[in-house]
């Protein structure tokens, strides 16, 4: 039982560190390059790492994925040069969504797919949600007005924006599902990797 505990702690530490590393190195690079959907891409990479680690945990009880998120967020927040607390919050929420997926549906294909999808949808909805919480009810009117103005200037009907949002939603969800599937497939091969020399 003790052995299981120490292995679980070590795996949470190792995979949380890997996620934090990917956020701090790749994150800086992707933000600098300014490529589209960089938030979803970073989240997908993080979700992949966490789900691989989740499969290999000796003791899957409790909230180990949130632990990995906490470690990743701590490492990200200590990245040199800047200090942004909202990044820690985002990472924690992503880990919470991953944990919710596997806790609700189990550490199986469905749980991984659902967890991956929920986590990858977070970058899409986070701005809307956070600004809605911060600014309150009036933000909806502002968003609608922005859409109307954009529609008038670009000559795109409002339904076009709805279609665009739907496509973005599907793209994010598909990415998350793909990540969950890949994590399940790849981590299965590492079940015997323990104690193998690298």
């Amino acid at each position: 039982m003790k052995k299981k505990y120490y292995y679980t702690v070590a795996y949470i530490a190792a995979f949380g560190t890997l996620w934090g590393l990917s956020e701090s190195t790749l994150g800086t690079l992707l933000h600098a390059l300014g490529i589209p959907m960089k938030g979803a891409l970073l989240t997908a990479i993080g979700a992949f790492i966490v789900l691989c680690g989740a499969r290999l945990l000796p003791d899957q009880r409790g909230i180990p994925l949130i632990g990995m998120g906490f470690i990743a967020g701590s490492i990200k927040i200590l990245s040199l040069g800047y200090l942004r607390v909202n990044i820690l919050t985002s990472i924690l929420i992503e880990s919470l969504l991953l944990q919710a997926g596997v806790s609700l549906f189990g550490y199986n294909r469905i749980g991984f797919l659902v967890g991956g999808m929920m986590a990858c949808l977070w970058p899409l909805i986070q701005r809307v949600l956070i600004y809605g919480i911060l600014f309150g009810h009036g933000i909806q009117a502002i968003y609608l007005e922005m859409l109307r103005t954009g529609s008038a200037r670009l000559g795109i009907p409002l339904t076009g924006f709805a279609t665009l949002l739907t496509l973005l939603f599907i793209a994010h969800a598909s990415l998350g599902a793909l990540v969950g599937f890949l994590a399940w497939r790849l981590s299965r091969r590492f079940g015997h990797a323990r104690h193998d020399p690298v």
Partner: protein
Amino acid sequence: MIRFKSFSKWSFVCLLAGLSLGPWVGLAGIAALSAILLNVGRFRENRSAKFYLSVSIISFLPYALIRRADILHLSLLLFFRSLTFYNTLLYLGENMDFARFHRYLSRGIGRQFSLSLSMALNLLPWMRRNTLESHALFVLRQRRPKRFLGYVSFIKTILRQTIHTADQMAENLIMDGQSRGPALFIITGERQSGKTTLAANRAAEFLSRGWAVSGILAPGTIENGRRMTIRVRNIRSGEDRLLASRNGDVADVCDDYGGFRFSKTGLDFSLQALRETTPDDIVFVDEIGPLELQGKGHAPALRALLGRPPAALYLVVRLSLVESVVKYFRIENHTLIHIPELSKESSPS
């Protein structure tokens, strides 16, 4: 937590952090210089040359590409902040009481997560170097990747390294736990099997050898094979009080359990005796029972002892409650001293 000899050093670190986070380059520069002075003389030990070089390149590369005043401002801020944080973290790391930090962190986020975080911070430099070296090797070997599978094998390599690292860390933790040896003993047996007697004999033996012994023992009176009263004895002072009784002779009842009425005076006396223990003592706690499993009785004092373990801790626990006590108080490393039912030591005078 941080081994500062005076309050001024702690204030100084906070001031540095405040100066460097502001938008003024001048103040950030002063903070960076002050932080470097904290570690002056340890330049070679900390292998800082590579770090300073890489930070310089990262900070000033944008300005080298885009020659604008606002970019220079940002580059300078990034450079000075990096130096300040790096040197301050180095200084804090060398002066920090990690055991205390780990205890406070455990209380905040739980033992498992705090242990994981501590391990992760130790692991970070090594994993960063390994991952970057693996990527560099991958890029050098695959100048023109022919197949997508090449990237997949790189990902597998990183995952395999991570698993190997986690396994090594876990094995180190297990070996460390085993080598440290148990410092917590649970004297257990059935009712009236001689648990208190054994604990009293052990305490007397330690005292006769000159060891510092403290804590409480709970002898009592037995009538017709049934315990009627529980007294509590402070091992260090030798005084005792009535802790609980079935006879109804407790004036200040604070709790009621299993037919026993517990005395507030007696309980306060025993809690005080447990508070007076020192980290160098061999401490006896007699007994941990159903009342403690409800968070009452000696439970608060026991939690405090488990948080700051003494040299050795002996707990007296009924056999049927051992598993519950271990789980409730999250006791990990312990040795059971099991008294068989027929074997009873002679009681001390």
